[in-house]
């Protein structure tokens, strides 16, 4: 068995660990004040019940954190081994981009969570990371290999590395925004998010306990989530700016022009502009809150399209997916 195969196995292991962490994080979110607590025996007094669910929350969070850290370590090992197998920076095709991007997202989450105690983001982050890794392994996987002459440059490390990192950080920012929008809707009396269904023709539609998001109450207020999202997205925006600049420097060397409106360049530009609009929107009174949140979702949709659509649909100079 060679390094590339071991790396693939470790990547599967990472996905498994993240999946377990996601389950534990989810239990941590919904127990206690959440939905599950209501199933406790009715004759138990409230204080004991509260104490029990508190204990349960602590325990599930502990499990989630441990499994997550284990997953991160395995993840790092998988990425390093992949680099050894290919004899280069391990982010030169879509598969590697997905794996390293999810590693960055998880790492950013761990760092922010340690400093600001935002463990509530654990479930969505590990969920997205699991999905990304599994998609990468099953749909985008290519054999570890060297790269064509046009990619043999230290800019592969810098430009693509920072692009991967930026995408990971944008992902964390987007997840904060999703929670912000959910919390905002919940606070404003959305019946849908209270499991009571939305107003349909005559009878409520989508009425299900699954949509009873009472756990949202244990999250910070929407305005705090918005600030967190803004912080994270600011970092990602600076990284993205660096991606554009380093890409232009590399393109000047490799293709003889620093900007040529190649489809990838167009979409990177669109991403930059949308997030620039978001930063400006947050600065004006009437565009904070939900509207700024929608801009994040639009921006992140562009990030995703720039990664998937542009690589797979358009025929440009960035067609390095290997798929």
């Amino acid at each position, binding site marked *: 068995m060679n390094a590339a195969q071991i790396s693939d196995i470790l990547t599967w292991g990472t996905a498994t660990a993240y999946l377990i962490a996601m389950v534990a994080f989810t239990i941590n979110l919904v127990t206690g004040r959440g939905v599950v607590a209501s199933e406790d025996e009715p004759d138990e007094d409230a204080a004991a019940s509260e104490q029990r669910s508190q204990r349960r929350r602590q325990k599930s969070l502990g499990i989630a954190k441990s499994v997550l850290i284990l997953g991160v370590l395995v993840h790092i090992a998988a990425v390093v081994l992949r680099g050894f197998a290919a004899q280069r920076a391990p982010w030169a095709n879509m598969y590697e981009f997905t794996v390293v991007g999810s590693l960055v997202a998880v790492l950013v989450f761990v760092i922010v969570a340690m*400093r*600001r*105690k*935002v463990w509530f983001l654990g479930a969505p982050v590990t969920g997205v990371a699991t999905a990304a890794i599994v998609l990468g392994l099953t749909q985008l996987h290519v054999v570890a290999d*060297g790269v*064509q*002459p*046009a990619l*043999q*440059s230290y800019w592969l490390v810098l430009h693509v590395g920072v692009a991967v990192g930026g995408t990971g950080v944008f992902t964390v920012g987007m997840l904060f925004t999703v929670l912000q929008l959910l919390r905002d809707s919940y606070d404003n009396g959305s019946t849908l998010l209270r499991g009571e269904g939305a107003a349909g023709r005559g009878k409520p539609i989508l009425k299900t306990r699954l949509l009873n998001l009472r756990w949202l109450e*244990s999250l*910070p*207020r929407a*305005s705090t989530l*918005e*600030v*967190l999202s*803004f*912080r994270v997205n*600011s970092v990602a*925006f*600076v990284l993205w*700016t*660096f991606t554009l*600049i380093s890409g*232009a*420097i590399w393109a*000047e*060397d*490799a*293709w*003889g*022009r*620093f*900007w*040529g*409106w*190649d*489809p990838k360049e*167009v*979409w990177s*530009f*669109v991403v930059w*502009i*949308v997030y620039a*609009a978001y*930063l*400006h929107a*947050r*600065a*004006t*009174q*009437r*565009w*904070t809150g939900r509207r700024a949140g929608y801009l994040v979702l639009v921006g992140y949709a*562009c990030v995703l399209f720039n990664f998937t659509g*542009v690589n797979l649909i*358009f*025929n*440009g100079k960035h067609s390095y997916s290997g798929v």
Partner: protein
Amino acid sequence: MTPDDKRSYRPEGMADDAALLDESSSDPASDKSESGSATGTTARGNKPPRRAVSDIGFVGMLRFIWRQLTSMRVALLLLMLLAAAAIPGSIIPQRSADPRGYADYIAQYPERVEWFNKLQLFDVYTSVWFSAIYILLFISLIGCILPRTKVHLRALRAEPPRTPRNFDRLPAHHRIDLGAAGEAGQVSVAATGADPDGPSTAQENSSLKPSQPAARADSSAKFIAQGVRYLRGGWLRRYRVVTETEPSGAQVIRAERGYARETGNLLFHIALVGLLLSVAAGHLLHYRGQVILVQGRGFANAQVDYNTFEAGAWFDPQDLHPFRMTLDQFDAQFRLHDAAAQDFTAFVTIDDDGQTSQETIKVNHPLEIGGAKIYLQGNGYAPVVTVTDAAGEVALSGPVPFIPDDQVYTSQGTIKVPDVTSGEQFGLVGYLLPTADQPAPNTWRSIYPEPLDPMLVLTLWHGDLGLDEGIPQNVYRLDTSRMTQVTDGDDAVTIVLRVGESIDLPEGLGTLAFEGLDRYVALDLRHDPSLAYVLISSVAAMVGLAMSLFIPRRRMWLRVRDGVVEAGGLAKTDDFGLERAVRSLAEAAAYGQPLDDRDSDTVTSD
């Protein structure tokens, strides 16, 4: 984004600090800089009541348009428009970025060409509508920078604003009651969190001992000195500090930091204008040419020696740096099992004004001579052929570049023979296969990019090549509109030739000899004097951006009165560190240094 609309000012998600400071902001100068220094983030929500257009006259109308254009709302709209307008160019192949895709597209959808051309959809990024959006955006940007620069320059010279009477109204404050002089045992600490929705006060009793209880009279001065030392200590806490005694006898410190935030913001926006100007200048001054250079051949940097050449409006042919270049050798390495390209290197000799030097050009490593860069953009094979005409005279002799089509260098090309002494002109069109393989009768293909067994597979045409009118023609395509293909019965005659072989052409047209195979490189030469400025502007923009996003701008106040040390703080932006900084200031003033960093830097849930 002009600084006039004070009422609607709101710095990046914070409560309006003009309201918080209402009782103390009687100083008009500080008040003005207040609204101005934050206009980067000014909302233009509350417009003045709109008057009928007829009232305001022409100048008023212009002013109205200017205000609209420079408002954040319109800037946002223009940004979103720009993003949307950029998208069609990624879907429709662009004439300049993707000439091949463009050619395929117009062949596939000829009915769309006319109205796509009218809408400039093949030239999105130079189109009138795209240009209009970004020019308006930059006007808006300049209209925003100018007043803000003025305001910021004033703010840089201004003192920190006056101390609010009541710290309770600030988003963060911390109060330490040191009690009567000498009574060190009991210290009551009251703190409120930064809660924009309405401060909740938490009382806590601590048994912390102030290190040096002192007599009230001089202790005030000492607390102030300790506070000032804290605010000026460390490179992250460089506050601008003013101390004064209020009429009530209380001693206060007012301090402000983070001016670089707005400096960075302005730098970012000014750098963007610089970027646009540099790119525009480059467009006017640049030149770019392509040349195909066969191994052993030379090239002189003059417009006539280029295969294609284009230059900006302000380009002067005198700017072409006179040098000569010879391609000595071209090395290509391919991997044996899948023919993947591994490395390309062109070895050239440069004759720069009598000084010769040996240089290499690689992909990703252009060669720089006299301000111009030479890029290795492609490579291929040029079969060396000799053609004699019907009279036996040599009509053509030398390498003819063929264009590679795929990974194994199946190359297309034409051999045009216009200079015949008698009879009709003729041309050959077909393929060069570097390593030929015959999987089936009459079928040939290339299986490897290296020239292990090169072969020419050609068909023959005779007639009028169409070269005599002087209209430029694609050298790689044969215009067969006035030519006839040489056939044998119903099938076209296929000429198959290996290196060293020679053949008599049918119908007595002449002979063709395949004498050898040379490599050639396709080089791009480019000169753009604005590159350095483009880079400087971009890097300045990024530095400014980081400064404007990550440097916190804070105002801090400290008041000492009757043994009570009270600190308050106000941030211009979302500032998680504010609460802790305010507490540290109070503690530093009271005890000489901040107490242990208790972990308050967390997001509290409610």
